[in-house]
């Protein structure tokens, strides 16, 4: 089975995230890393291989992003993925979801031309834009079944059955390979790379492709080709800390209720 996990390089959510003067996300001035939510996809790919002992399963980490984004691929390789593909091209900067999904789809086609891709995996969302649309867009572009937001993944042969926890119902969704599968953070903690994994990752194959390698024209992507435009970004004024009281023999509850009453919540 040939599995490709799409991984995104995002600004660290615990760092001071900013926008550039052209309203794109600052992906260079802030420390970046593999999107935490994509770690779950890498983990599920690795678990699938462990469960299906004896099958020939290859896991590729695919990332579209600036030069530093190679760190996201490296993390996936350290966790246990077999090889990496990094699509990097200055023209890609500022791409919206539609353009990003085009680049990913074309890269997946190129990977598939060499060896058919059976399973495209992603996290449930990125931790920066958090749109959650890329898996659906990939399924649309590649005409593959879309089995998304899986919180539990089970498979037998080519049939995958997942649990999808929606707003109003929990669904069991079934699809057959080849397909696009996105997994949530409910699928289970992602492993930390072992020392052995970190050393082994250094020798794993890592290819770097430009747009011309995957048959995408520069004018199809990037900020100018985006079908959406950010008009303005504004930092939300920081909240100022209000009154903090320490509870002593019930004084905390009284103060709390007084506060809520003063705000007309009671």
């Amino acid at each position: 089975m040939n599995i490709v996990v799409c991984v995104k390089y995002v600004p660290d959510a615990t760092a001071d995230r900013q926008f550039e003067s052209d309203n794109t996300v600052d992906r260079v001035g802030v420390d970046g890393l593999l999107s935490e939510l994509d770690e779950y996809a890498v983990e599920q790919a690795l678990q699938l291989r462990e469960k299906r002992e004896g099958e020939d399963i290859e896991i590729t980490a695919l990332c579209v992003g600036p030069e530093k984004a190679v760190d996201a691929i490296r993390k996936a390789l350290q966790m246990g993925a077999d090889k990496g593909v990094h699509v990097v091209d200055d023209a890609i900067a500022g791409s919206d979801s539609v353009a990003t999904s085009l680049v990913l789809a074309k890269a997946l086609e190129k990977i598939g031309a060499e060896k058919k891709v059976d399973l495209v995996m992603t996290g449930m969302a990125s931790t920066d834009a958090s749109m959650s649309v890329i898996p659906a867009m990939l399924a649309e572009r590649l005409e593959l079944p879309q089995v998304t937001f899986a919180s539990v993944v089970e498979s037998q042969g080519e049939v995958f059955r997942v649990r999808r926890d929606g707003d109003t119902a929990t669904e069991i969704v079934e699809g057959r390979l080849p397909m696009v599968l996105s997994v949530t953070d409910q699928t289970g903690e992602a492993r930390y790379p072992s020392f052995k994994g970190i050393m082994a990752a250094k020798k794993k194959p890592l290819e770097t492709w430009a747009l011309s390698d995957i048959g995408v024209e520069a004018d199809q992507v990037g900020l100018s080709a985006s079908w959406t435009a950010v008009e303005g970004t504004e930092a939300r004024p920081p909240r100022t800390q209000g009154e903090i009281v320490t509870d002593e023999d019930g004084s905390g509850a009284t103060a709390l209720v007084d506060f809520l009453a003063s705000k007309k919540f009671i």
Partner: protein
Amino acid sequence: MSEILVLVDHVDGAVRKPTLELLTLARRLGEPSAVFIGDASQGADTLAKHGAEKIYVVDDAEIKPYLVAPKAEALQQLVEKTGAAAVLIPSSAEGKEIAGRLAIKIGSGVITDAVDITSDGGTPVATQSVFAGNFTVTGKVTKGTPIITVKPNSAAPEEVGAAGTQEQVSVTISDAAKTAKVIKSEPRKATGRPELTEAAIVVSGGRGTGGDFAPVEGFADALGAAVGASRAAVDSGWMPHAFQVGQTGKTVSPQLYVAAGISGAIQHRAGMQTSKTIVAINKDEEAPLFELVDFGVVGDLHKVLPAATEAVNARKG
């Protein structure tokens, strides 16, 4: 006046509140037309009462058993048929995926998770709250028919009488859209409390509850609030994931958010930081959430909440 399509979110025919908010927002842009996938007999009146001039009913048995893709095809055919000026979709997991597929199908830009929409000469301008609520972003779709998904609580639903003229629409669902099958669907059990994303007050519990949510639930009920949980509480198996507030759970923006025993990791803050008033109760005076609060109590939630519950109930008489 240009037609604005609003995809109706419903549970077995009963229209959910976010759809009514979308109709209100749609009226700022043009004339709202509801798109009802399923049996509209129960929901049509509600939609008309909230501004739907037309209701396109797509009652096709071939849609329901499959995930997302057939709904996107149905919407595509309606956009082409009506020449709509924009499509508004509720920002649920499914709504966002329908929007994503529709964008590729009709060659249009898509904006997700809008918290407000205004009109710039009929062109929708969407406001989003990003980076854990630290930034407000405004944006437009610049190509095709704007597709925007909108979060719950983005507008107060307005009652305005509209015609609500129903039109049955038949669509063609391709075989390619019937590849991810929903083989079982179990509705969530009703809790008797307000819906988390729609509630005016939310009381959430975290690691500090130690697994005992009774004080949190008791206080929530005294205030008529919804109950939420931090990821730590969900990961510990104390509450189902549907109650999780935060980056990978629900984003809430109530009038009042009460966090009990929640330290306030960035992932949690991402889900509640835009609440109007924030209150925290925590034993640890160093808990980062205290930095955001309008009012904080350093103390044991197991003592503070039951006493506060009693006091609230006493005041209500």
